[in-house]
């Protein structure tokens, strides 16, 4: 009875086309935003902020980016981490080389660098589809990491190729505590997630989905294949790039090209598959799941290990973690191939009817 849209009549198309048309959703989103901006910073300690919430938000942003490309536009990519790397190194170089460069502008420029690289590696998508394209995006993955390692200019000739982010300051306010970094990350992520939501419910989003669902029909309608696909690559890479910049600035503080390896790309792909392909909400759910699961397994495993004594082989818990992680992924795919977002949708549909059976 609580989650009901009955009685909420739309008097105009404008109200019907709101970002969250159902009143309860609006309330929930508002409450969640308030929670994230007000309550969490008050309650969460440093561990939660800097080890869980910040990476969660950053990965969610990268997942939103990948979801635009893979979930909405239907182009499978295995190179997300590379675009994150471009964003991180791009932003860092802009701050380093342009005096007085505002931080947020540097993030955006880093994202734009990633978008340009994304367009280049998106070009083959016109001819190549499915797994051929997926494997082809690995070219981006390996090439970008190689180039960042190889050409020392990108890391300002540091011997190791590692970059350490500069002090973060916006309008004189220093972002050097976990809480401040959390605020910055949260703001960027919320703004970009809303923008993504707006895009996918506009004509560009419909064009992406049309290409995903049936490209020939989309072309016949007059959706330009080249522009639409490349735009998906560009915007997706922009999101990944900004996420990469945040990853460097707000999370790790120091990054090296190899940190943006294939494993990271897979991790983000996992997020959208488990969270829900073609769902902005799913990107967040998936990111939460993938960030929290290993930590949860680890925090459960270690005390268990102590409890059972040292007679266990040392690698046991680590290996079990890996097995359980992989097993749970398979389990979730089998139980709900459309991801957590679909699970949530089903719950909502049930809630609409609750407490009546029909």
């Amino acid at each position, binding site marked *: 009875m609580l989650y009901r849209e009955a009685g909420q009549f739309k008097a105009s198309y404008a109200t*019907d*086309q709101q970002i969250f048309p159902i009143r309860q959703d609006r309330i929930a989103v508002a409450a969640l935003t308030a929670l994230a901006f007000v309550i969490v910073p008050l309650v969460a300690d440093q561990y939660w902020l800097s080890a869980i919430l910040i990476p969660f938000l950053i990965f969610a942003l990268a997942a939103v980016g990948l979801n635009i490309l893979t979930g909405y536009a239907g182009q499978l990519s295995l190179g997300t981490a590379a675009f994150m790397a471009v964003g991180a190194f791009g932003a860092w170089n802009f701050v380093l080389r342009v005096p007085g460069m505002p931080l947020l502008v540097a993030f955006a420029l880093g994202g734009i660098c990633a978008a340009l690289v994304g367009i280049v590696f998106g070009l083959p998508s016109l001819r190549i589809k499915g797994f051929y394209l997926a494997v082809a995006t690995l070219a981006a993955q390996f090439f970008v990491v190689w180039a960042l390692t190889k050409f020392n200019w990108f890391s300002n000739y540091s011997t190791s190729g590692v970059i350490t982010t500069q002090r973060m300051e916006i309008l004189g306010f220093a972002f050097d505590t976990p809480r401040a970094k959390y605020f910055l990350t949260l703001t960027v992520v919320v703004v970009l997630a809303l923008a993504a939501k707006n895009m996918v419910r506009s004509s560009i989003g419909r064009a992406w989905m049309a290409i995903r669902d049936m490209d020939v029909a989309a072309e016949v309608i007059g959706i330009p294949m080249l522009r639409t696909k490349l735009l998906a690559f560009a915007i997706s890479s922009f999101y990944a790039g900004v996420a990469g910049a945040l990853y460097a600035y707000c999370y790790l503080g120091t990054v090296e090209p190899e940190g943006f390896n294939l494993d990271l790309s897979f991790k983000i792909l996992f997020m959208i598959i488990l969270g829900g392909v073609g769902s902005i909400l799913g990107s967040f759910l998936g990111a939460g799941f993938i960030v929290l699961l290993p930590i949860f397994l680890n925090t459960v495993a270690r005390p268990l290990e102590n409890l059972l004594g040292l007679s266990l082989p040392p690698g046991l818990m680590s290996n079990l973690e890996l097995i359980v992680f992989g097993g749970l992924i398979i389990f979730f795919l089998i139980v709900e191939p459309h991801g957590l977002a679909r699970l949530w949708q089903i719950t909502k549909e049930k809630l609409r009817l609750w407490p009546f059976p029909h």
Partner: protein
Amino acid sequence: MATAARKSGDVVLKLENISLAFGGVKALSDISFDVREYEVRAIIGPNGAGKSSLLNVINGVYHPQQGTIMFRGKQRRDMDTHEAAAQGIARTFQNIALFRGMTVLDNIMTGRNLRMNATFIEQAIWVGRARREELENRRKVEEVIDFLEIQHIRKTPVGRLPYGLQKRVELARALAAEPSLLLLDEPMAGMNVEEKQDMCRFVLDVNEQYGTTIVLIEHDMGVVMDISDRVVVLDYGKKIGDGTPDNIRNNQTVIDAYLGVAH
């Protein structure tokens, strides 16, 4: 039906000596025919006669090896899908080509994508032109939805709809583009009598109310003879007949081809 009474205008589309082959297989050989403004033009023929290929040539999905296409006064070697759409050609497909992951409303809205000019940045911020365009086009789409009587399924994902309704949604998507030339590939295939009647009514209404020229592939001879102004008959990629329904009905080659194929 009083088809003869209806005004048919100038030739808007003219195909001349079109030949199309895939690898070594000839799909169309030396086909010529024209379409006049405001008319309902049917293409008939047995399975594999090249009917769908012909539609695909008209709106640029296939590029013929030979021949020319004249559309709205412009002669060309082949069509480009995007150009075709921009010039006002819309179509439906034999095997429904809806966007299965999207709702009915979104599917129909894609039909108006060409009319939405807001940049993705405006759309991301959802202000000004982007918002205005969404609303204006939504209004148009709602007209189409009312016209085809599918208000009740507006928010349903198309994948969940029964076949007949899917066909109707596909027509809606094509109509949303406000086309001047509408290509319909077996719009009534697989429908029951009632659904067919509905569909016939819609096609004729479109033709009459909006003045849309219609090119139609259909197997149901009754329907074809009823609603079309002129008919082209294909067999094995060749044109074997062209004329009014009455002409075709009495054309010996056509009768042979049909009887020969049927049994």
